[in-house]
């Protein structure tokens, strides 16, 4: 594959740097995945808990390479007419109307049924042709001449049937439309495909086999500090360290939904809005609903709020 910004994918370090410049802080595995995806021409299946930046990775890579990011959001009941293509019925109807009127001219001078039919065959039929094709995300991605980033988001929400539908696209970068034939991607500029999954159900082996598998876990304290720093640069270092320690503590607790990075970032923004300089138990209690999304969780944490806050303060004195 040769993309216009190929040099940005030359090696793992350059990729990591490029991502960092766009405020996407990731470990080496993430950069390695992007590197291999490009050079082996394979899609990446990204798994991990919600809010660790799976979707963000695809968007950032698109931005880094200056390519369009085509997104297909999956949901139950998604089918080929929404994902691949659809016929423009209205136009097709109009076309038949027009055809009807010109039918006389076409069949002019024909004798007998056989001759008419053969004349009709000679007349190029464009009823099923690309003009009447409404491309949906997958087809659009294939037809992009300059390459693109295709993001198939939350694949685990779709049906099993849809997964099978994707296989042809993912392994050969082509799609078959029965009426027209096979449409292939530009051999030199295949789309860079990212699939994300929250693991609500097991993805089939057939799909997994065709992809590189990247697992993004919650970041460790160090990485998370860097991420907050990159995303919310206004925040004071002291407060940043405190909140990261606090969040890391929460992740060890028995919660229904532990706070992810996106919640940490939201929280950081909240704290800035409130002109906070240092964490204290009251403040945390008031803003707890930013990081915890279940009443049960909030209750669990409130019970231990004081001790966790103190710990966060102590560690970052």
């Amino acid at each position, binding site marked *: 594959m040769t993309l216009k910004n190929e040099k940005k994918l030359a090696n793992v370090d350059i990729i990591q740097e490029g991502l960092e410049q766009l405020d996407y802080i990731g470990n080496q595995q993430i950069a390695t995945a992007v590197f*291999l995806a490009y050079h082996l021409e*394979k899609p990446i299946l990204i*798994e991990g808990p919600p809010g660790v930046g799976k979707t963000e990775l695809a968007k950032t890579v698109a931005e880094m390479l200056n390519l369009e990011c085509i997104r297909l959001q999956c949901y139950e009941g998604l089918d080929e007419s929404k994902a691949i293509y659809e016929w423009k019925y209205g136009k097709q109807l109009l076309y038949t109307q027009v055809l009807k009127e010109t039918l006389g001219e076409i069949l002019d001078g024909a004798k007998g049924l056989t001759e008419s039919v053969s004349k009709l065959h000679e007349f190029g039929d464009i009823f099923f042709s690309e003009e009447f094709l409404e491309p949906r995300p997958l087809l659009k991605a294939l037809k992009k001449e300059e390459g693109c980033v295709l993001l198939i988001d939350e694949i685990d929400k779709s049906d099993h049937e849809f997964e099978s539908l994707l296989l042809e696209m993912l392994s050969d970068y082509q799609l078959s439309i029965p009426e027209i034939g096979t449409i292939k991607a530009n051999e030199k500029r295949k789309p860079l495909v990212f699939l994300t999954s929250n693991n609500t159900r097991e993805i089939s082996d057939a799909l997994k086999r065709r992809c*590189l598998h990247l*697992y993004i876990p919650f970041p460790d304290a160090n990485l998370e500090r860097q991420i907050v720093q990159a995303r919310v640069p206004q925040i004071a270092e002291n407060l940043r360290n405190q909140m990261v320690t606090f969040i890391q503590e929460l992740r060890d607790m028995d919660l229904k939904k532990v706070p992810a990075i996106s919640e940490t970032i939201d929280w950081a923004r909240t704290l800035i809005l409130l002109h906070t300089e240092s964490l204290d138990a009251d403040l945390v209690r008031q803003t707890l609903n930013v990081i915890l999304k279940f009443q049960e969780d909030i209750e669990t944490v409130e019970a231990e709020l004081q001790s966790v806050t103190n710990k966060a303060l102590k560690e970052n004195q």
Partner: protein
Amino acid sequence: MDRTLVDFVKVLRTAEIKVSPAETLDAMECMDLVGYENREFLKNSLALVLAKNPEEKEAFDDCFERFFVMDKPAQAGNTSSDEDASGGEDEFDDGDFNAEGESQQSGKGGGQGGGQGGGEQEIDDSVPALQPTSELGKLLTNGTRTEQTISMMEAGRKVEVSKIVVFTQKGLFTRKIMDAMGLKGLQDEISDLQAQGGPGERNLAGRLKKSRDLLRERVRDYVEKQFFLHADETGKQLREELLKKVKLSSLEKRNFKDVQEVVFKMAKKLISVHSKRRKTYKRGQLDVRKTLRNNMQYDGMFFDLKWKASKVDRPKVMCICDVSGSVSNYSRFLLMFLYSLAEVLPKVRSFAFSSDLGEVTKLFEHSKLEEAMARTMRDYGNGSTDYGRMLQDFKNHVMDDVDNKTTIIILGDARNNYGDSKSEIVKEMYDKAKRVIWLNPEPKSSWTVGDAEMKKYAPCCHQTEVCNSLVHLERVVSNLLKSVA
């Protein structure tokens, strides 16, 4: 290197990472691209291609560390030997893996490895060094460490050390590898040298003997590593196979953890087989678009209607378990199985009894299996079995919930202590439910012996099965899932 990769894939497979041939090819392509220089990079890359879920990633890390560990010492040996090559001509470093410091000494001592005593070194200085003639002898005295390691690994491949299964084979394989490396030639040479009896010959014989013993050590180490790599998991597989077939009542407490693992694995298999089965729903909202599309081929006549909803049909299971002493173990595993299947069997209601019937559904849903089982045993486990009472209880409390989609599984030996069997209630279940399955842990021949009432119950069941091992359990549950589709 391809060969190494294939070996590595084999190791991964024994560690229960599913690697398809296509993925192996991907890995090769990936190795071509990545190269072998940067270990971390290679590891990350291979992990992306070969391990496809978080558990597999963990196992992969472990395997990678263990499999590629021997490369490091070999390289260290290599560099040190290269340095030594300028120091003395017939030297070799036979020290252990931290050979660097010792090999300096060997350069000065005129060719002896660090492991050898000073006395011999003096002799060595006075007598011109003899060269060994056998293949292995040459390799040991003149070859670099890397060459020796390679030769050892090649020999290992030849004798298929990766097929090692139990630890008692370690000695055998060590011997086989030594033989394959040409031990016999070396032995002959040593005894020849000793027979000739000159000081030079004796010296050489001594050195060869020493290095032979050291080589044996190394081969033993190597075999040991291979054993951990290949056989550890194979042994586990063997054990698991065994556990599947053994009678559940003879399982001991220490096996429970293993069994649980096996059950989860079997359950997972069943889930993946059955979760895809879907039934097109025949009612619901008309999917206009789909219908139009589908009927275009019939000239727009609508006779193939498409509906919006598609529905997964899942069985409603009621499971009645005898938890009295003799049968409790079977109940334990049946319940374990059913609750591991929560993904495809969301509607399991379970009841336990020895005389009184009690519902334990909530208990199993909310607490850990061990705990739930222990509490069930405590609450319902004592007292003599009374099937009549149980059935009466079932009729009074639960029968109303039984409908034609319900499958009732009864697990018990049907030994009623000569009480009233109340088989008419089972008949009622038979009429109301979709299926009634009776699982009996006893062999068929004793179903009618003594106080067993199977003769009365069996006609009122759709299916009666002997069920006393995990394999049986798996078959029953699989059938259960099949029958609803």
